[in-house]
């Protein structure tokens, strides 16, 4: 009897030893190792909505790390706050052979506040952990469970979100009561999810397998357009003790207005008086709005404090009035309150801000979209947009941070989708003119004037706003020529439908054109040379030019007596679907004239045209660096 027992014990031990090799690297298909810093071996995520105030969110994932870059993906980072409770975290580490070499628990995690560096305060914290393993590859397996005490925002499933990470298998299941109303949105997911019902519960499961690693490609479209995202939004929700229901932007906008905005628009009597006085006698709503916007710019500044209803509720207008600061929500709300006093309606608009143009998803309403707030003033036939966090932007100008995209307006009658203005390629100009005298020692001296308009208005806005030594430093960065010296620097702003910034200065470029063996070498394009773009092989993604523009440069060089162009003048023209480039150099009497015009078109082009695109740009780079050779 005893002998048998021992036998069983040995067998059990043996089977455990065998079972310990769980994630051998040799099991990864070759195609997934190519260009991968890490591979998600196995990922199972289950969101189980037990009640609107109780969503169990369970994650189990195993990631194999091939190199240092891959460690970013092996690092487990969990953000939590009052509405997100970490129930358990544990994990194990395996070597290349798949044998366990370590394990860890919640105690091994570092806990820190998660306040963005631009914020004064946010009530979010973060726990993070990275195992210490000296040899690549290794595999780390995590298992953790969160409890969400709300169901307004349920984390989306984004299995292929990371660059340079392959996915062997990932699966997401959402479970809720059979009678619960939910809305589902999947983007770029091929196939149909699996649905199952039973015991009064229903589930939907999505899964992907064997996705090779993708790398970032320059001039490529917003990843949202080709990466997989699955979002689930319950119709009836609970959030920070607020209840509501929505199934479209209109309803969510109505709830947001009522719950978050309606009670914060009141202003103290003194400020109301100030506003009335400011707009007194002004004829149009537009003039009134402009005066009030300038008042806002004088009186307030941007300070980010993210508290209250998950960071969605703006600071009340009377608070901003008293403190003189607020975040984007608070400042937009304050501006709205000022306009309201003057009897001008306006909309609080949620936008996905950033240099890349991203739309609010028109076919799927959900609360987590957007990261910034702007104000829309629907003047008759003249809708005006206001960025309320900047003290420098002119009235009615949004700039590249929020231009040309769909935004979500929250109004008393409900939500609606609107579109911010686009600055056309032809209007977004940078026009430069200079007359420079070439001295015998190769030094250039003269005057340069550059006008920046529409989409290019912001190019030198920061320089214009600075002064003294700081301004010189910024100018040297923008005009990075050896020993460059600026004098009589001046900036003029022209507001209007298309705002324009005009920069003028006198400039000296010592020994810019060196002489060697009787020849003088002059690169005619001094300050606007197009940088190269990488010549990516095997391009996978479409070519995307986010923002087009028109640049024109006209430089006249006054040559010393007897010096002539010996390398010959040139006239180059390139036309392409991506834009148009023209450059000429010619001598006229004692002047050498350089003219360059470059129009870059915006838009999306098929992947196979990337080679053509890089050839176009790199050819321009070559021509921009071309030298004129002068001699007696």
């Amino acid at each position, binding site marked *: 009897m005893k002998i048998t027992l021992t036998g069983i014990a040995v067998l059990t031990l043996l089977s455990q030893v065998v079972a310990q090799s769980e994630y051998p690297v040799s099991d990864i298909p070759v195609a997934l*190792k190519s*260009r991968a*810093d890490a591979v998600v071996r196995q990922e199972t995520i289950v969101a189980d909505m037990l009640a609107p105030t109780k969503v169990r969110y369970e994650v189990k994932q195993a990631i194999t790390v*091939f*190199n*240092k*870059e891959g460690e970013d993906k092996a690092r487990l980072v969990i953000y939590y706050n009052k509405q997100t409770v970490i129930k358990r975290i544990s994990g194990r580490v395996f070597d290349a052979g798949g044998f366990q070499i*370590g394990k860890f628990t919640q105690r091994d995690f*570092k*806990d*820190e*506040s998660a*306040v963005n560096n631009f914020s*004064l*305060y946010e009530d979010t*914290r973060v726990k993070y952990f990275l195992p*210490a*393993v*000296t*040899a690549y590859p290794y595999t780390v397996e995590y298992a953790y469970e969160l409890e969400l005490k709300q169901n307004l925002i349920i984390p989306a499933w984004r299995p292929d979100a990371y660059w340079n990470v392959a996915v062997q298998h990932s699966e997401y299941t959402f479970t809720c009561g059979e009678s619960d109303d939910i809305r589902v949105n999947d983007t770029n997911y091929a196939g149909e999810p699996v649905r199952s019902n039973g015991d009064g519960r229903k589930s939907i499961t999505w899964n992907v397998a064997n996705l090779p690693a993708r790398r970032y490609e320059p001039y490529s479209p917003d990843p949202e357009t080709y990466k997989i995202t699955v979002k689930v939004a319950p119709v009836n929700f609970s959030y920070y003790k607020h209840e509501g229901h929505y199934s479209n932007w209109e309803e969510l906008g109505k709830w947001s207005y009522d719950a978050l905005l309606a009670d914060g628009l009141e202003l103290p009597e003194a400020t109301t008086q100030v506003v009335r006085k400011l707009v007194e006698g002004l004829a149009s709503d537009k003039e009134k709005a402009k005066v009030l916007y300038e008042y806002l710019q*004088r009186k307030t*500044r941007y*300070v980010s*404090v993210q508290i209250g209803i998950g960071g969605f509720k703006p600071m009340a207008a009377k608070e901003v009035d*008293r*403190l*003189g*600061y607020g975040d984007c929500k608070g400042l937009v709300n304050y501006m709205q309150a000022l306009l309201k006093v003057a009897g001008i309606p306006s909309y609080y608009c949620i936008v996905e801000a950033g240099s890349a143009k991203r739309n609010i998803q028109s076919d799927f309403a959900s609360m987590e979209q957007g990261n910034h707030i702007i104000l829309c003033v629907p003047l008759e036939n003249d809708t005006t947009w206001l960025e309320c966090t900047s003290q420098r932007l002119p009235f009615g100008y949004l700039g590249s941070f929020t231009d040309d995209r769909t935004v979500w307006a929250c109004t008393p009658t409900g939500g609606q989708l609107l579109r911010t203005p686009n600055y056309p390629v032809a209007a977004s100009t940078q026009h430069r003119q200079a007359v420079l005298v070439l001295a015998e020692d*190769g030094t250039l001296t003269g005057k340069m004037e550059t006008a920046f308009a529409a989409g290019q208005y912001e190019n030198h806005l920061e320089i214009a*706003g600075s002064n*003294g*030594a*700081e301004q*010189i430093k910024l100018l*040297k960065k923008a005009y*990075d020529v*050896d*020993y460059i010296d600026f004098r009589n620097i001046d900036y003029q702003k022209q507001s209007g439908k298309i705002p324009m910034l005009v920069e003028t200065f006198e400039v000296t470029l*010592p*020994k810019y054109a*060196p002489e*060697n*063996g*009787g*020849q003088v*070498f002059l690169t005619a394009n001094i300050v606007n040379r197009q940088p*190269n*773009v*990488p*010549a*990516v*092989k095997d391009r996978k993604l479409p070519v995307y030019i986010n923002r087009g523009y028109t640049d024109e440069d006209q430089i006249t060089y006054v040559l010393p007596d007897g010096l002539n162009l010996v*390398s010959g003048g040139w006239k180059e023209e390139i036309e392409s679907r991506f834009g148009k480039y023209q450059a000429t150099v010619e001598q006229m009497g004692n002047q050498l004239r350089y003219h360059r015009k470059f129009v870059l078109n915006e838009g999306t082009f098929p992947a196979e045209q990337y080679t053509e695109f*890089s050839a176009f740009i*790199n050819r321009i*780079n*070559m021509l921009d660096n*071309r*030298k004129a*050779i002068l001699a007696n």
Partner: protein
Amino acid sequence: MIKTYLTFTFIVLFHICLPAQDFTFGSLTPADVKLKRNDLDSFSNAAVLNEYGKAFMVYNDTKGYTELIVEYHVRIKIFNRDGYGRADIVLPTHRDESGERMDVLSEIKAITLNIVDGKVVSLPLDKSQLFREEVSKYLTHTKFTFPGLQDGSIIEYSYRLTSPHIFNFRTWYLQDDIPKVNSLFEALIPGMYNYNVVLRGPFPLDIQDAKLKRGCFRIAGKDIDCSQMTYGMKNIPAFVEEDYMTASSNFKSAIYFELSDIYRLNGSNIKITKEWRDVDRELVTHPDFGGQMKRDNVFKSILPTILAGAPDELAKAKAMYRYIQQHIKWNRYLGKYSENNIKQALEHRSGNIGDINLALIAGLRAAGLDAEAVMLSTRDNGVVNDLHPVLSDFNYVVAKVNIGDDYHLLDASDPFLPFGLLPLRCINGKARVINLKEPSYWIEPKSSQKSTILYALTAELHPDGSLKGQLTTTSNGYTALNKRHELANYNTTEEYIEHIDETHTAFGISGGEIHGITEAEDPLVERYDIDMKLYDGLDAPEIFFNPFFINRVGKNPFNLDERTYPVDMGTAREERVVITVKLPAGYTLKSKPDDYNLALENKGGRYLTQTQLNGDTFTFSQLLALNQATYVPESYFALKEFFSRIIQQEKIDVVLHKAAGE
């Protein structure tokens, strides 16, 4: 750098104490109101009008230890919107590891003062806008910002800090990134505490005074006299950070304190920091320092495996170094002490700098080698005080192994470092060698290898302007180290070469190989088959091309109009280019860049170019050498001119002429 030291002694003077020298909260002077931007300098967007601090000690009977109390008060004028950032205040408070002893902030007071229609309007800080952020278990930030800011607003705040951390008393930062009109600090130090006091920075104090203050400290029912030190400075210029400089703390004016002795009531004297021999004894017996160095038994069982086949001392040292490099991963924490102890670090394969390099020292000793510890301060931590031991200045430890007449400095925290090369962060002036038996001594670590790179191109030029050939790049020192780090991010050499191909748009790479990726002691050699378009145009009678297409400087790294601090690059460097091109038939060299030979004074640097045509073979060579790791501020313009000349030279083309009839 100019350093001024104050020697602090007990001066017993019988004075009546002056009343508190703090300025009145919220009460502006005409000068405060009048001060305008550009009155102090041409670039600052805010200025400190007045700053006062007072630090004293109180024995806390309940807790049973002495606490430091700091009262701080400052008034700042904000000239314009770019200065608004100065209104965002962060006050850090620390908690020790046990969680029992912590800093406590109290009496925070803050107001904004605006001049409206010639009258001062004050807006107090709203307590609901005072935030406490628990950054981690050991650190809390108390944060606030000022309401109602306008251009020209004056902001003022004060607080009281009670701290159990008395070792460094209170560092008084005289110089900041904005100018200060006045800064005054009073330190009340009880007679039983003796501090070393150091003034750093180029400016002299305007006020420096020592008085006796009777009975200002009470312990165990006894009153103890204090010395009341006053330090003041007026019109302190803003500190401006520049490129190529080490830690700003090396240059900024500040007063530093370090506790050296405590005289107890019973007459005994505890030496906290005094002489190096005391420090040596302390470190050698410290369980997390000397204690770890001595643990050669940890290596007993693995020693034969590690040293297998190592014939001599150098081979043994290298084997042990390699072993530690590969077996303990750096957890990114610095420190001269072992965090976990070396046995655990070896078992868990993870540790801080102390764990790793003390383990290395123990291992070297286990192998029968003469190994010592070298304490140092990293570049961004500032240089160490070399007049007397200030232990807290040191934040790093490396190993020194003595073999014959040579020694090697070793840091095993980076698996790609070759034997004997310290990482650049460790090259920062003096370092102290701690020996288990002998007295400690100073050395000045230098990088043991020059950073060099050689580009050799052998190619053939075709009449259509295309150039085909082989480019071989050989790197050493930090250049090789950086490349190895970069290579480690690619799973295969092919992927790395593809990356090089894509990012170097000037040429295409059709194939290549890399040697020495894992052999950190060897040079890193990259060999690429390249083709490029050297010039544009077909069978033209004259062709122009620029020979400076490899390792082009292009932009001047030195573009300041004035320079105050030394240029510190950490290491000497040398870059060579050799190009050999076979020209198409029938072309002759019409003109070329004149051969160039440019030198910096005192052999500080050299730039050489040479162009030649032998038959149909065109050769071009270039050398750029910066022979010093550090250049004095006076050399700045020579460096700037040096690079300017290089840039001018790089603009000159080679002109080839097609012989008639060809």
